[in-house]
């Protein structure tokens, strides 16, 4: 009896909380995401999930354009008012906008920009690679910065819109512990001049951003953004349906149709720059012959994978540069399923009874199915494909060492320039994990992409990349699978969300509002 009384009291006590829905008010946006932050230091992080929080807290010299609610890959002035570049493409002079200050009143000037870029370079981690072309920086006066490059570098301006080029308060130098360049401080704090600041980060639970009402640019419409970490897709979906969160990212494809039936939720689909492809190890004896690689490219049922595994959320790649990026060619050769042609090529190459192994990790939910489809596809042309699933660290180690036949991979560009595909994937100097993961080496392609790298003339670069693409498609160093569609389900009350293919998993919090 006593037990029952106690139980009733407990239930009554908890029942009085009435926890049905916790929808935040219209000044607060709640985003449920799949992964916690690792560091908030823009000079250290190479992870889009970190950038989601870092990016809105800082300004950069340039930003991506938005036209009619569509995020573009071109850049426009942000903290830089204007700039000039010397004819040889080596000297860049930036005029910095006056009147921007950090939270403590320190002005954002030429010295602050110099300090930030110099800091990222000195730390020497992932973000430093994007701006590695910088040789020297001089603050000509308070608001003029002159940057000299080691060599002309076509994508330079685009790299200044990346997270690693965020402008950090130079006073953070005082927070350095020993030689750490304030890494310990900036890992857990933000000190920028952007429209938001981080006011709470409870690890594994949530991060709270607060809008700065006196931001120099367009004023944020929200007062607060809560980023809630929820690793399970079904969990995020339930919270979205229940109205506890406003945006839910990375919902598994098979759960999307159910969300589309809910009138309170809008499911947006955007063509992204994220591609998935198969590295074909060109240094491998069995795959050295381009005809064998072409046969593999002819054997894959691209449309079948897109229709059934991705449930239509993708488009077959045409050439290595994805649609939406300049340099993409709509007329470049594209492989389609042709079993007879593939068999013929194998026979001519004397490579019948081929046995290969495809390695992949569990990084993507769809990879297991794609591997199985490819196994069946290759069996149709007489190639025995063994599948080997392995942990991501092991996989990356094997890629770096070139210890594989075929490997499933994904790639998204850090900045809006075909360099991210053409130079990373095909320049033999980047062989291994940095980018050329098929260990492809073609001297003429090397020459073309390196020439394009150092040119500032867009038209010339287009021509060079175009010529390289024709050669590459014949050499078939990768099986170009598809370009993914990013799916962003949000509550119908969310207004002003803009997707930018360069800012995957990141949000334009400054222009979002709720009705």
């Amino acid at each position, binding site marked *: 009896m006593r*037990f029952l009384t106690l139980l009733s009291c407990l239930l009554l006590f*908890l*029942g*009085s*909380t009435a*926890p*049905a*829905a*916790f929808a*935040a008010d219209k000044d*607060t946006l*709640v985003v449920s995401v799949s992964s*916690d932050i*690792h*560091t908030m230091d823009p000079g250290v992080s*190479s992870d889009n999930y970190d950038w989601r929080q870092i990016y809105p807290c800082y300004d950069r010299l340039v930003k991506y354009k938005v036209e009619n609610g569509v995020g573009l890959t071109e850049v426009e002035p942000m903290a830089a008012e204007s700039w000039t570049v010397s004819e040889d493409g080596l000297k860049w002079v930036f005029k910095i906008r006056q009147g921007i200050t950090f939270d403590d009143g320190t002005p954002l000037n030429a010295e602050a920009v110099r300090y930030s870029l110099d800091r990222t370079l000195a730390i*020497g*981690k*992932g973000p*430093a*690679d994007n701006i*590695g072309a910088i040789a020297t920086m001089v603050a000509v006066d308070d608001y003029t910065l002159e940057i000299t490059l080691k060599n002309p570098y076509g994508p330079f301006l685009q790299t200044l819109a990346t997270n690693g080029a965020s402008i950090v308060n130079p006073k953070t130098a005082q927070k350095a512990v020993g030689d750490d360049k304030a*890494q*310990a401080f900036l*890992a*857990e704090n933000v000190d920028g001049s952007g429209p938001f600041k981080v006011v*709470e980060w*409870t*690890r*594994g*639970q*949530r991060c*709270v951003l607060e809008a700065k009402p006196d931001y120099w640019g367009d004023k944020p419409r929200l007062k607060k953004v*809560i980023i*809630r*970490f*929820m*690793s*399970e897709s*079904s*969990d995020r979906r*339930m*919270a979205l*349906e*229940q109205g*506890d*969160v406003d945006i839910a990212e990375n919902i598994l494809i098979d759960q999307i149709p159910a969300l589309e039936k809910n009138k309170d939720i809008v499911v947006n689909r955007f063509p992204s720059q994220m591609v998935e492809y198969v590295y074909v190890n060109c240094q491998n004896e069995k795959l050295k012959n381009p005809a064998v690689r072409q046969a593999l490219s002819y054997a894959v049922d691209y449309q079948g994978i897109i229709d059934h595994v991705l449930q239509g959320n993708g488009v077959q790649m045409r050439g290595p540069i994805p649609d939406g990026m300049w340099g993409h060619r709509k007329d470049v050769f594209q492989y389609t399923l042709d079993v007879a042609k593939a068999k013929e090529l194998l026979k001519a190459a004397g490579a019948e009874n081929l046995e290969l192994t495809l390695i992949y990790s569990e990084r993507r939910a769809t990879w297991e199915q794609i591997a199985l489809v490819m196994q069946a596809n290759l069996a149709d042309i007489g190639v025995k494909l063994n599948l080997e699933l392995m*942990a*991501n*660290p*092991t996989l*990356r*180690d*094997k890629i*770096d060492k070139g210890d594989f036949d075929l490997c499933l991979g994904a790639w998204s560009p*850090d900045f809006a320039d075909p360099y991210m595909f053409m130079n*990373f994937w095909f320049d033999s100097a980047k062989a291994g*994990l*940095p*980018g050329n993961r098929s260990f492809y080496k073609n001297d003429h392609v090397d020459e073309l992409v390196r020439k394009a790298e150092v040119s500032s003339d867009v038209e010339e670069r287009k021509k060079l990349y175009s010529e390289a693409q024709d050669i590459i498609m014949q050499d078939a160093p990768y099986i170009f699978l598809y370009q993914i569609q990013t799916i962003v389900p949000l509550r119908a009350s969310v207004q002003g969300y803009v997707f930018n293919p360069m800012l995957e998993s990141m949000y334009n919090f400054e222009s979002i509002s709720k009705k």
Partner: protein
Amino acid sequence: MRILTYIIKRILAAIPVLIGVSILTFIISHAIPGDPALLIVGPKASKAAVESIRKEHGLDRPMPVQYLRYMRGLAQGDLGQSIRNHRPVTSDLADFLPATLELTMASLFLCLFIGIPLGILAAVRRNRLADHVARVISVIGVSTPVFWLGLMLLLLFYRHLGWLPGSGRLDVTSSPPIGVTGLYVIDAALAGDWALFKEVLSHLILPAFCLSYVYLAVITRIVRSSMIAVLGQDYITTAKANGLSTFRVIFKHAFKNSLIPTVTIAGLSLGELLGGAILTETIFAWPGMGKYVVDSINSLDFPAIMGFTLVASTAYVAINLCVDVLYAFLNPRIRY
């Protein structure tokens, strides 16, 4: 006094066990092919950036040197720096351990609070309806996948009925209580914030029930069988013949004597629960050790893996010691 000597001896004996565990974990985690530096610098980093990370975390040194360096730090209470999170492992553990502790304690409470009465009922009403019901509950408990159960609980109580909150330790809009212990129930009570206290408790119910269900089933079965064994003893018959009430016979005479196997199982369960309830933590977005360690393994974060293993093995050793000491209190014939 003798028990004190016993405890000291056991604590001293734990030191080589923990050193052994540290060596084994170190060797096994380093034997996994892969380079954590490659994972940290991002997918497109240059060789120079990878080298800089290797150097920063001492990954370029030979393994024995890395181990000795680690042990030297450990002797000074330094568990090293997490490669993935760029911060001391002790800080990470201080953030994630309390969440697991809170969930574990709540689960253990539910296990014992429901499991023991159910086991006693099943034993006393052996082969009758109550026993069959208890058996069905236990079998379902042992055979239900935690992942499925968790989702079903959320779907029913959160999504459809709206009686209980969704995942997480707190509502989306609530800030954590000021941290004293890191256990939100206690911190909220200490702060006198009863609304938050209720919120925290209501968030605990579903994950704690989900996590406890498997162990609850085991405890029910153990209590039942040990109670049946004890209830058949001569002294119970004597007690009954003396006219004692059934309640007194069961709780005063039979129950205490049937507790030893239950304490053993409860101790082991607690150890396992502390080891990280990865599935429950994932489904309920519970920021605990289970998820932390799996993420650490996936990114070969050696210091984090080592830190977790040491905490988990210390907990195991401590729990086993407590269980052994409890035996002596439960059964005065046991002497150390």
